[in-house]
């Protein structure tokens, strides 16, 4: 234990440079967030993640955001346990009928102003599960979506680009009020 801790004093950090903002994500976001992001949030966002029926692939990559390579907390992005602490809910999966109510209730529990980020191809329109008797479809069929991050699953970098775009917008709009 001591040896490891000692070593870590000298080793270079694993953390990488922040990626550049993704243009499509920014444009998609600009329209959606523009009207909502009126109030000052400060330069931090608290995220409540909700799996609304995903295969868990998206969760694995969202998890990866917390590893030392990406280390999202340095951008002021934090995953929180309670929807009441959240500014953003990040939703994955083709919302299943069995999860619909839980998603609605989680959304309702998030205080205003709030944003919804749908992560993954399933979250856009149900992906390859669309049309099933057990699936509602995209997240926007259940709660209003501000940003969609595509991929199956999107890589951590792609998710990060989307989140940075969201953060940037909220910070700017906060500054202009």
């Amino acid at each position, binding site marked *: 234990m001591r040896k490891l801790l000692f070593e870590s004093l000298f080793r270079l950090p694993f953390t990488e440079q922040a990626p550049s903002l993704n243009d499509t994500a920014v444009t998609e976001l600009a329209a959606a967030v523009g009207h909502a992001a009126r109030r000052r949030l400060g330069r931090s966002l608290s995220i409540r993640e909700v799996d609304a029926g995903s295969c868990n692939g998206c969760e694995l990559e969202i998890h990866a955001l917390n590893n030392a390579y990406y280390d999202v907390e340095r951008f002021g992005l934090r995953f929180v346990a309670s929807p009441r602490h959240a500014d953003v809910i990040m939703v994955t999966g083709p919302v299943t009928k069995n999860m619909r109510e839980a998603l609605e209730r989680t959304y309702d529990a998030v205080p205003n102003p709030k944003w919804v980020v749908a992560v993954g191809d399933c979250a856009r329109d149900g992906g*390859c599960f669309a049309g099933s008797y*057990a699936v509602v479809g995209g997240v926007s069929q259940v709660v209003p979506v501000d940003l969609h991050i595509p991929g199956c699953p999107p890589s951590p970098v792609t998710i990060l680009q989307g989140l940075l775009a969201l953060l940037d917008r909220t910070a700017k709009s906060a500054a202009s009020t």
Partner: protein
Amino acid sequence: MPSLIDLMLEGRKVQQHGPWPRAIVDASVWTFAASELAHGRWSLLGLWGEPSMVHMSIMDEHTAEIATISLDCPDHSYPSVSKYHPPALRLERTVRDLFGLSAEGLPDTRPWLDHNRWGVRFPLGNRTIALPKASPYAFLPVEGDSLHQIAVGPVHAGIIEPGHFRFTASGETVVRLEQRLGYTHKGIEGLMTGANLERAAQLAGRVSGDSTVAYAFAFSRAAEAALELVVPDRAVWLRALVAELERLANHLGDIGAICNDASFALMHALCSVLRESVLRASHTAFGHRLMRDIVVPGGVTRDLDDEGKKAIQATLDNIRRRFPALVELYDNTASLQDRTVDTGVLKPALAKQYAAGGYVGRASGRSFDARRTLAYPPYDSLRFDVPVLNDGDVNARVWIRVREVEQSLLLIDQILDRLPEGPLGTHAGHRRETREGMAIVEGFRGDVLVWLRLRDGRVERCHMRDPSWFQWPLLEAAIEGNIVADFPLCNKSFNCSYSGQDI
């Protein structure tokens, strides 16, 4: 003692079913098989339905023989297996939910995957309109002095899949845990019906995100068994390569995550870095971090080039350099061991009864590993050990993972050394007639079973059974008598799939 062959002789053998036999039997043979399961002479591999038939797949662990028996149910009922053999319980509740076939004598008739939200009942059988109103799910009663209930989920506090846990506790001690799952039910077997092979393989790879390779592998092997396809050698070896990379990434992630749930974050941080390095190498080598859609019926879709090979080798070197120090750290940290040793004990007898696969079974004395026991290629020509422990606690499940990481490193070495040259796939061709196939592949979590029937190039019926079906109920048993605060730790050490069992 009758053998599985005798069981087959009792029934009418189904033609064009490979590689193991399937026979249509009568109710007395069906019930006989159930009682043999109950006596522990055979293990249950799966139980699934069709609109008017049920199937049960059985293994004799001594001989590694496998057979499937099927029973016609023209009047939509069949003798319950779980009446004798509890591991079949959730499967029979599911057969009822999806097909409307009821098991006579079923000890628990509550629905399982059906939360009465689909708008239909028996979606894969004779559909009927849903019940007018969802009645609340009746949790099993628990009685006693000063007990209280704690309800958790379906939305949990972390970034994990949804499910509901109902704890009954006496003070801090868990007296009973009851799970309620089904929240991520996507109706995948329904979507499979009528799909062509390409789409079906894609769906199979999306049953459980962390096992995308294992599922695509199992599905492909089942389809190949049905179509009698011979997969070229290079593809066979590349499949094992991606399967081992997947196992490596998941085990590294799990070891860290278990320690994290024992509040030892340093281990989590360091293991996550190793996991990430595997994902990046996978991306360089195969173009996708989780290696989705790489294994397909007939072969693989991506070849390994020199750059990919180098990336994988560099990652293996890195893990070899860093992992031993982490293992030492785990072994020498008393505060961590204090949480994991003797916590969440799963007794070997239960693991055997439920034919628990993967690290759950192997940490409780059950040595089954499909790679070894069923020796499908290329594992029949690779050297590796199957680690087994008997303690059955969280600690044992950590150690099995540690040993499996080491084994996967050795396996990948051998694969890279001996990777044969040649084509990447063979064409599935078109077969009009009905053909059936089955496969069992060792995923990181345990054995994934896929059974399918193809007709005219399309899937007529496909059933996929996640190892979690037989692991989830064991978690309920393992948590008893532990404190509530140790639940996350126990849960993580099992790491059952929600999406895979909800299907």
